[in-house]
């Protein structure tokens, strides 16, 4: 099983809407959200808090059902087509770094030597050499998120979903993780949907940026980012894009 054997798949959201019933009446969390992510594309979803981006993430990940509309592909446990990375890592604390990375492969009954080989490659990929036998409690936040990323990649998903994955780590670690995820995207050509509230992060990473507004949560604009990587926030073009996104969010 090569790391990028299953390269990216197309993700399509068609008029996705979500309503909640609350004591004060129904709340429209999401209204008519439609966009597509091409195979191998890196799309960032950015928006203010309360715009429903986490709800949208959970719908794409299959943890919640939309009230209206459809998401394709749906997550299936048979194929494990989606690798999911959460903001708060959610590592299995009773498993070592290696044990966490192997978790999905064990469910797939991958042969033990294959598991070991693949775990080693993922450990190298995310830069955790020497920590295979460590337990999560002894790792820093940035290291935990690397483990979570390796664990998601271990089942070779065609789609990688990330929900504010770098927002719980310090700024320096975040920059390094951002570079890492770009390298990993380059190498594996996974389709990536990356949710963030950080405009700069979205503009640095995404091939496209989907900007959301709130009340109800909906798409304000989809922006193609044609700047070459690595992108510097000090260039005028970057600044212009930043202002453009900020206009929707404020």
């Amino acid at each position: 099983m090569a790391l990028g054997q299953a390269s990216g798949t197309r993700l399509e959201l068609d008029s996705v809407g979500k309503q909640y019933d609350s004591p004060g009446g129904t709340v429209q969390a999401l209204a008519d959200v439609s966009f597509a992510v091409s195979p191998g594309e890196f799309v960032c979803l950015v928006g203010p808090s309360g715009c429903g981006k986490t709800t949208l993430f959970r719908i794409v990940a299959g943890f919640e059902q939309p009230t209206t509309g459809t998401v394709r592909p749906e997550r299936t446990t048979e194929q494990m087509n989606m690798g999911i990375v959460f903001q708060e890592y959610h590592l299995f604390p009773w498993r070592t770094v290696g044990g966490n990375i192997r978790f999905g492969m064990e469910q797939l009954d991958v042969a033990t030597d294959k598991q070991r080989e693949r775990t080693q490659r993922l450990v190298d990929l995310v830069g955790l050499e020497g920590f295979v036998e460590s337990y999560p409690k002894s790792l820093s936040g940035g290291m935990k998120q690397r483990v979570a990323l390796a664990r998601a990649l271990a089942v070779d998903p065609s789609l990688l979903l990330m929900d504010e994955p770098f927002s719980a780590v310090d700024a320096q670690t975040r920059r390094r993780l951002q570079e890492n995820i770009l390298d990993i995207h380059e190498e594996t050509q996974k389709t990536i949907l990356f949710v963030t509230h950080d405009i700069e992060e979205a503009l640095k990473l995404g091939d496209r940026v989907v900007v959301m507004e709130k009340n109800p949560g909906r798409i304000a604009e989809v922006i193609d980012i044609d700047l070459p990587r690595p992108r510097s926030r000090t260039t005028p073009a970057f600044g212009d894009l930043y202002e453009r996104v900020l206009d929707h969010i404020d």
Partner: protein
Amino acid sequence: MSTDPKFEIDRSAESPEGELSVRRRLVTYDYRRLGLGVSGLFAFLLVWWVASLSQPAFVLPSPPAVAESFSEEMSSGEMPTALRQSLRHWIPGAVVGTTLGIGTGLALGWSRLLDDIWAPVVRLLRPVPPLALIGFAIAWFGINDTGAAFIIAIGAFWINFYATYGGVESVSTDLLDVARSLGVTGNLGLLRSVVIPAASPGILTGIRTSIGRSWMLVVAAEIFGVPGIGARIQRASNNLQVDTVIAYILLLSLTFLVIDTLFRWIQRRLLRWH
């Protein structure tokens, strides 16, 4: 390299491993704490001894009298026999009660449906003290090993049930989401791969608590006439042999200490990650 323990302490302090810092703490404080513990024990014995001087032996025997009684009971074989008999009630009772308690705790903690069905029954039965069931124990099993084991099992059951139930309830739904996203399906799969390991600190604490409590129940469960430590204590106190009573209490404590230490060691090994 020096073999001075101080040197090792400093070296391990620099290591990022959390485990080593625990070991360092153990090394540093072990002698001091041991010394304090021993002096506390001596103070206790001294107070006891002084108090016993002014009392007749059937009210409070002196420490040497108890020690003598202990060694007499040991050499006559009566104490080893009583210990063996009690363990024959305690081990099956504790094992059965713990197993059923953990099993029921997992089922009710995990399944909303089962919980809704059984919650009223649980609330109704929970306050019944195990000893109130001695009548049932006699009626159902007779005045024998099984009857005593039954009482102990009831006690162990509830402690393990609540510890496991609480442990399962506190398992993070996010971890379950992660497991689902990594291909775990079905209740059994989730229980095995996430719920049980995540709840294991709570479950193990429950087991450890129940070991102690059910060992105390042994004495009470034997009072209705099943031979063992409890019955021996009962007989000795009827004869006003208070030194013998205390000797057997000492046996209870020592046995508990051994079992508890053993289990704590197992618990620590299992929860290295915690």
